[in-house]
């Protein structure tokens, strides 16, 4: 009886394991749909990191940080501004790969009509109250949490 119950659970768990795969597909579709339709409102544009062939939507609203999208915070509110800070969760959908960015790597952000190219200039860990590190003129700063939310990891890319 127990054995049968375990078999049933194992069988069902196979379907459960399909959930993240489905989520990935749906998220990609959502992102592609936003990009293709050039949706405005809360969406400012999208980010593309060639090194990882990573693409995600940039949004700006007052709600809590979206778990799956890149959020534009502080300073400039529009792509093309001089001091752009993009925050993203340290997960596979958003910014968990930025740890692998090296100086010289390209980051492109676009407002759906024009591309702005940046080149990584600096990467560093910062304290949670080091606000100054986010204030970088003519730069794109990517930020994500690290060290169990005790620190932040930032990538500063200069506009080229």
């Amino acid at each position, binding site marked *: 009886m127990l054995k049968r119950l*375990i078999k049933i*659970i194992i069988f069902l*768990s196979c379907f459960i394991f399909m959930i993240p795969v489905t989520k990935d597909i749906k998220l990609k579709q959502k992102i592609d749909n936003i990009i293709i339709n050039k949706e405005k409102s809360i969406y400012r544009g999208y980010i593309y990191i060639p090194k990882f062939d990573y693409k995600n939507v940039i949004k700006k609203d007052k709600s809590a940080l979206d778990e799956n999208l890149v959020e534009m915070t502080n300073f400039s509110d529009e792509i093309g501004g001089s001091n752009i800070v993009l925050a993203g969760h340290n997960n596979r959908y958003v910014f968990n790969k930025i740890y692998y960015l090296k100086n010289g790597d390209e980051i492109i952000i676009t407002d759906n009509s024009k591309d702005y190219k940046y080149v990584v200039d600096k990467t560093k860990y910062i304290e949670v109250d080091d606000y100054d590190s986010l204030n970088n003129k003519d730069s794109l700063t990517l930020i994500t*949490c690290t060290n169990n939310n005790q620190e932040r990891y930032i990538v500063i890319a200069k506009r080229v």
Partner: protein
Amino acid sequence: MKKILRILLIISTVFLIGIKGVSAESVNITQQFVDNVWSFHYRNGSVWTFGNLPYNYANGKLVYCIQPDARITTSSYNVYSDFTMSGYSNDIKRQMELISYYGYKYPGHESLKYYMATQELMWLFSNDESIKWTTGNTDDTPMIDVSYEKNEIQRLINNHNVKPSFAEITYHVDVDQGLTIEDKNRSLDRYNIVSVDKLEYSIEGNKIKIKTPNIGDYNFKLIPKQNYNGTTYIYDNFSTRTQTLASFGKPDLKEYKFMVRVYPRGDIEINKTNEEGEKLSGVEFEILDENNKLQDTLVTEDGYAKSKSLPTGNYIVKEKKELYGYEKDNNEYKVSVTGTGENYIHKTLDIVNKKIKCEITYITTSKEENIDVSFNIYKDGIIVYSGKTKNGKASIELPYGDFIIKEIEVPNGYKLNDKEISFSVNDITCASTLKVDNEKVIMPITSTKRNYCYLLLFLFDIGGLIYVKKTD
């Protein structure tokens, strides 16, 4: 008896000489007749005599006929100094002297018509009622009109004792101002003007225009135009009936003088700046004289104004209209425009205006919290003030003008509000408040909760599979 007769003859001769005056010398009379000029003498309404006009000379000197009743019958005349021997009074003598003086020999009168007029005016002292001048020896020949010349001579005679109205007067005039003095008595034409101190002048009618390029005292003399020596004589030969002639000495002539005293002039220059030494334009000043009478109004241009040329004296300079944004200078500046030896005196006033200062309050917050920021104030792109708010507030004194205030540094954790705030300081906005709010910088929370459900499920699956395998 003969002796008695001789004595009587001597006495009668001496008596005759006493009556007739002293005969100084004998002269030779010559005549030069003028062609086509005849005089017709009227008495009782009709011509009683006429004759061809001659120029009469006594030893070559022009003499006038004063007795139209007679003709010259001899060339041998005697000279007498007693005019009354002519039968005319000394009063008529003086009048004839004036006719002679202003007549034919007077400068500008050396013409035949003036000679005719002179002669006619003298003849009118005889019993002649009138004289008519003709071109022929009958009175129906064309007339020659000398009335203008007669009137002119008469005018001069009538004015003989009238001196120019400016005689013996000292005129006061400023340098370069020039002086025009008018002879209200219209007798200037009887005088030659001598500028003793060589001051340039010109004559226009009865006016003298004098240039006054330099300070000093300048004397002028008014000298009668004609001046000659000699006394009045009559010429006659009482031994025969012949025409009495006369030559005339000068009448009583007077010289006059007047003086022109030329004073310097000056001006007042004003240099107007603010406390920083900037030249201020558009400040209006009044210049008043000692009697508080307005003399000039000045407006500074590029910090400078110069009065018009002013007479020497004491003046008061007052700021009439202050420049917007500046305190009015209520001082009265006394300026003495005086000096010696110079034609022009320059006096300079350096006046500094104070700017009106307004207190502007700058408040820097972040929502309800006061934060201290560093800021700059710009005017025309140049920093005019740098400061920092304390407890979120700063008070700055600023003059009138247009400014821009901008944050340049904020504390860590606040977003710099680098928006430039333009503001004007003026009489309306004096003591106003500017407020700037700063957003806080957000430190995003980007941690991801680990989802261990799948791992547990996976481990459960593995464990389950092992368990199933072992129990099979």
